[in-house]
């Protein structure tokens, strides 16, 4: 066993020496593997990052929350869109009925939104999401306040001109100031900042509070028609503990159909959307992108594998005399086999490691530019290294086998 370990160490040393001795050739050989591993790992890292963002967003939206809206989130094949166009949008008055008539809903909130420029003195930010909501919003969605407080029930009830702003808004219009108690201006009117949302980062569905200005719905109603489709009205309903989404959906369907006086044979004229639908939809998309990553990277790796096999054949040819001498000095077949296999695996691993390094740099760049988390995970690093080692093993096996089977007489004859 000790002898075997020593032989493995010795063959690894011969392999490493050969790699070091042929630097330029090594670099050129590795390009294929480097590009392949870079492509695969980059795609996987970006996918992982996106998936993480989407999962976080879904979590933030609430996996036990159902959204009552005009349009469904997921369209089936041959989607009859013309039937949906004439549907009514959810109304604020429907919220009261949902809260009072359903058994499954713990809390529900009405939401309407628009894009506005928000100003504070000479500072302003364009296209901020101005969102009006009702007082149970913080019971339906996770609300994390970093400064100040959330809007009180009294303020909601009276429609006071107060807002909670997102971190991005606060940074833009209050760069060096404490926003709490300051005034922001939209629709030509002033509103007092009572709180700032904790920074959340870019959400997968644009649902992050960072760019939000949240105000009581009754205050927003002074400027816009919150029941107009233009302002994307919707009702969010959160299930009571122990109630499944399906139970809540059945409950909500009954209440909504009654509210809208739909005949038994009539189709629903509302959509009950849940985050799991998005999740399933995204799983399908991620699977396709992941497959594309494997195919693109796979071809590069395949080419890289052929490159390694080719260079290993050259290496065997170049070192024929050394192989012969090693054999004549007592080296066994597996010693020669291991030596060349090591070389192929080391070559491939170096290529993979360089690919990973480049992927690391590119993901870091994308992360900083896109303000999203695309970091290289340990799983992806291990995947990259394992794929590299496997390619090295597969592409190096035939040359190594050939070397181990070389006739020592022929091998020594090639010795000058």
């Amino acid at each position, binding site marked *: 066993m*000790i*002898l075997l370990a*020593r*032989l493995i160490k*010795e063959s690894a*040393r*011969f392999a490493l*020496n*050969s790699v070091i*001795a042929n630097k330029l050739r090594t670099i050129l050989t590795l390009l294929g593997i480097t590009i392949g591993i870079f492509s695969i790992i980059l795609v996987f890292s970006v996918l992982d990052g996106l998936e993480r963002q989407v999962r976080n967003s879904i979590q933030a939206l609430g996996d036990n929350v159902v959204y009552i809206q005009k349009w469904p989130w997921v369209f089936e094949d041959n989607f009859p869109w013309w039937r949906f166009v004439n549907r009514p949008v959810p109304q604020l008055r429907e919220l009261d009925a949902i809260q009072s008539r359903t058994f499954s809903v713990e809390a529900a909130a009405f939401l309407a939104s628009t894009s506005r420029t928000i100003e504070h003195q000479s500072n302003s930010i364009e296209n901020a999401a101005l969102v009006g909501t009702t007082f149970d919003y913080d019971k339906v969605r996770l609300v994390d306040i970093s400064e100040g407080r959330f809007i009180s029930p009294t303020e909601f009830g009276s429609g006071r001109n107060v807002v909670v702003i997102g971190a991005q808004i606060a940074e833009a219009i209050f760069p060096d100031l404490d926003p709490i108690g300051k005034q922001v201006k939209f629709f030509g009117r002033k509103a007092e900042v009572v709180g700032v949302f904790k920074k959340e980062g870019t959400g997968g569905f644009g649902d992050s509070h960072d760019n939000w200005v949240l105000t009581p719905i009754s205050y927003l109603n002074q400027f816009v028609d919150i029941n107009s489709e233009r302002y994307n009205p919707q009702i969010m309903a959160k299930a009571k503990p122990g109630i499944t989404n399906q139970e809540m959906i059945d409950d909500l369907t009954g209440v909504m159909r009654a509210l809208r006086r739909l005949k038994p044979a009539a189709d629903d004229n509302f959509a009950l959307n849940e985050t799991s639908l998005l999740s399933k939809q995204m799983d399908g998309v991620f699977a396709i992108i992941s497959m594309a990553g494997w195919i693109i990277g796979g071809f590069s790796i395949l080419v890289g594998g052929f490159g390694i096999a080719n260079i290993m054949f050259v290496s065997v040819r170049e070192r024929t*005399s*050394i192989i012969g*001498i*090693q054999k*004549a*000095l*007592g*080296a*066994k077949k597996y*010693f020669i086999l291991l030596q060349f296999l090591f070389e192929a695996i080391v070559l491939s691993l170096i290529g993979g490691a360089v690919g990973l390094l480049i992927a690391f740099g590119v993901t870091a760049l994308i992360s900083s530019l896109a303000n999203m988390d695309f970091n290289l995970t340990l799983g992806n690093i291990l995947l990259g290294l394992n794929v590299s080692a496997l390619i090295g093993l597969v592409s190096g096996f035939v040359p190594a086998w050939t070397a181990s089977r070389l006739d*020592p*007489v022929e091998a*020594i004859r090639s*010795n*000058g």
Partner: protein
Amino acid sequence: MIKVENITKSFEGVPVLKEVTTLFERGKTNLIIGQSGSGKTVLMKCLVGLLESDSGKIMFDNLDFNKMSFADRRIIRKQLGMLFQGGALFDSLTVEENVIFPLNMFSDLSQEEKLDRANFCLQRVNLDNVNHLYPSEISGGMKKRVAIARAIANNPSFLFCDEPNSGLDPRTAIVIDKLISEITQEFNMTTVINTHDMNSVMEIGDKVAFLYKGELWWEGTRFEILDTDNKELNDFVYASELMRTLKK
């Protein structure tokens, strides 16, 4: 002792060795000489087991190599030291690592014991303070000495040398020849040398076997070679103007 009995070897129907019979004795330096294509390299390869003869016997200390099992052959191979033409050192290994290589392949010695053995062998070929140098950092003569040290690292009973002083200047070549001869006597090895070099023959040839067209044409000592009337041998020995002048 190596006993060769009626060895024949052909390649694609062309006979290269024809019924060669001879004896290489222990403690002596045995030289195989002959023109290029005479079959001396093939004979050497048959002796070290790199080629199998078509017929005949090769006896290592009365053991028939051709009839041995794989395991027994491996035991014999452990007792073979080989000195290749040009030295054939591994360029990527240091002098010390080159000498240790056969020990790594064949022995169960500890690293310390292997280092001791390598140092002993290097000192025996008069090489000091070169352990950590690479072959490219030492002279041709030193490379040959390292190769000899590597050949004797396993303390072999049989030493085979292929053109041991090719590429060396005459003075260094004689030093190497003498070193091989000394080691042969000191370790009581059976040494077989394949050479063209008449200087070597005259320096260390305890026994000389002359091959001509695959046949053992003549054998004797280095002293007898000068008195023979064998025409083919004389043509070989006195091929150069220098030797012809010396004869006159």
